[in-house]
């Protein structure tokens, strides 16, 4: 094959990293530098309640039966306008059984965010969580739903653990030996990687939503209100920059439960490592933290502080945050897809 033919073949092969999260769907492609992000929500509205003008600047799906589904970011705006709740295809990290009938809408959302694939050979690595160690929830169904979605779109697909994708994105300097920890909304995912091979992976049901639920219960508040305060004011540096007493009390409670979450996670990492990893690690490895729940200032320092209270079965070279908690997983998935294409 000539160089020209090789180049042409290369142009026709597209690698894609697709991070399917509870809050966001993030997609990165090998043929451009932009990463697409959309909210993983949609809103079904009655066509009689909306005019063509209102729909002109938003993304929506129209069915033969004249059903209208507003998808992505705009769904929230219109939900407020119509005083309705948005529909969430995923719940606590996995496909929601309540919304599985909307699989067509989810398929179109994913097809939309992947973009143009006409006349191209497309390979997609998509993120999946690991099996939970503290809750009876299987990921097999979730994995198979997205396999079916990607198959219907017409792409080649492969499932990759979400925390492992963090290692692919952030641990090239350590030759892909490291621990990836993703603190999402519904789940915490953890993966231990040794030279690019998964040595251990697991998830827990305690993460961002758990913190909000516990605080809401303790302070007899609505969970959404706690989430709103957390996103607006939360810092884990020890200082609280608000004067309102009620808000201050919420932030103090949140701080307590953040510590409880990190403590629980560290204990689980030690336990699972001792029970399931036979290999002895001779070299120190980094711990890389990502996910929306880890975004407040001071999270990584708090993690280091709690970690120092325990004797670990491995040596830690450093604890650091990922470069961009929103795009790290999609980036890592893209690297894996390209690496796999080189091995074929």
């Amino acid at each position, binding site marked *: 094959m000539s160089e020209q033919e090789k180049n042409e073949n290369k142009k026709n092969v597209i690698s894609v990293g697709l991070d399917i999260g509870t809050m966001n769907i993030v997609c990165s492609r090998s043929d451009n530098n932009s990463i697409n992000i959309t909210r993983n929500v949609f809103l079904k509205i009655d066509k009689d309640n909306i005019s063509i003008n209102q729909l002109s600047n938003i993304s929506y799906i129209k069915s033969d039966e004249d059903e209208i589904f507003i998808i992505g970011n705009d769904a929230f705006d219109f939900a407020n306008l119509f005083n309705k709740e948005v529909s969430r295809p995923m719940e606590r990290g996995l496909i929601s059984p309540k919304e599985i009938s909307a699989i067509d809408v989810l398929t179109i959302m994913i097809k939309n965010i992947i973009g143009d694939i006409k006349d191209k050979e497309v390979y997609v690595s998509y993120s999946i969580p690991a099996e939970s160690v503290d809750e009876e929830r299987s990921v097999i169904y979730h994995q198979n739903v997205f396999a079916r979605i990607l198959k219907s779109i017409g792409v080649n697909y492969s499932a990759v653990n979400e925390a492992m994708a963090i290692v692919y994105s952030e641990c090239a300097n350590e030759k892909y030996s490291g621990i990836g920890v993703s603190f999402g909304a519904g789940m915490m995912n953890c993966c231990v990687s040794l030279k690019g091979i998964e040595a251990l992976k697991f998830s827990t049901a305690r993460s961002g939503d758990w913190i909000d639920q516990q605080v809401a219960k303790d302070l007899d508040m609505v969970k959404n209100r706690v989430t709103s305060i957390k996103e607006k004011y939360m810092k884990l540096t020890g200082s609280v920059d608000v004067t309102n007493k009620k808000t201050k009390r919420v932030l103090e409670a949140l701080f307590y439960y953040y510590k409880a979450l990190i403590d629980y996670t560290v204990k689980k990492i030690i336990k699972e490592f001792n029970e399931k990893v036979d290999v002895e690690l001779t070299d120190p490895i980094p711990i890389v933290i990502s996910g929306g729940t880890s975004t407040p200032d001071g999270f990584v320092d708090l993690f280091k502080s709690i970690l120092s209270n325990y004797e670990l079965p491995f040596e830690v070279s450093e604890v650091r945050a990922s470069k961009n908690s929103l795009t790290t997983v999609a980036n890592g998935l893209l690297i894996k897809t390209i690496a796999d294409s080189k*091995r074929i």
Partner: protein
Amino acid sequence: MIKLKVIQKGIFLEIPGIKPIRTPAEVDITNIDITLVLSYLRKNGINRYQIISEDEKTKIKEIITETDIKKKTKYDSDIDKKINNLESMMTKLLELQQAKSKLDLEQIPKRFNQLETKVNNNISKEKIKKPEIEELDLSFIPEIDLSTMEVKGTTTHNVINQENEDLEDKADLLSRLINNSEE
């Protein structure tokens, strides 16, 4: 002279060697084999009889009461049953042993071949079954039909631009590491 005296009424005696006669009767059985007579009497359920011999050397068989006969016959029949059962068990056992002894070295490879064929048939059946199970799993996922749906309007997802210069290098390194570990 030996006489047979049958007291039981209403029986038509047809002992070989003697003229048929209806009971109660008294017949001369001197010239007839005594075991034959006894066998006949037993076979026909005649249990009230007397055999009288004028010869002193011959013993007299007394008339036995019904209850004694019943007990005795019951006892006899039980023993007979058990002996018969034992005989049949012994016969079966002997037959089995004979059958086993017939299994010589030439038959063993035959049996192995039969077993192998059976196992292969089962494996091929299993292979056929597996795809059905996989299809059942996927049937829990609803079918996707995009033919009735159309995306309209403006795409409004957020776009982040970032440099991907070192993506290829990272992917190269990962690919090499995974290949090395597989070797």
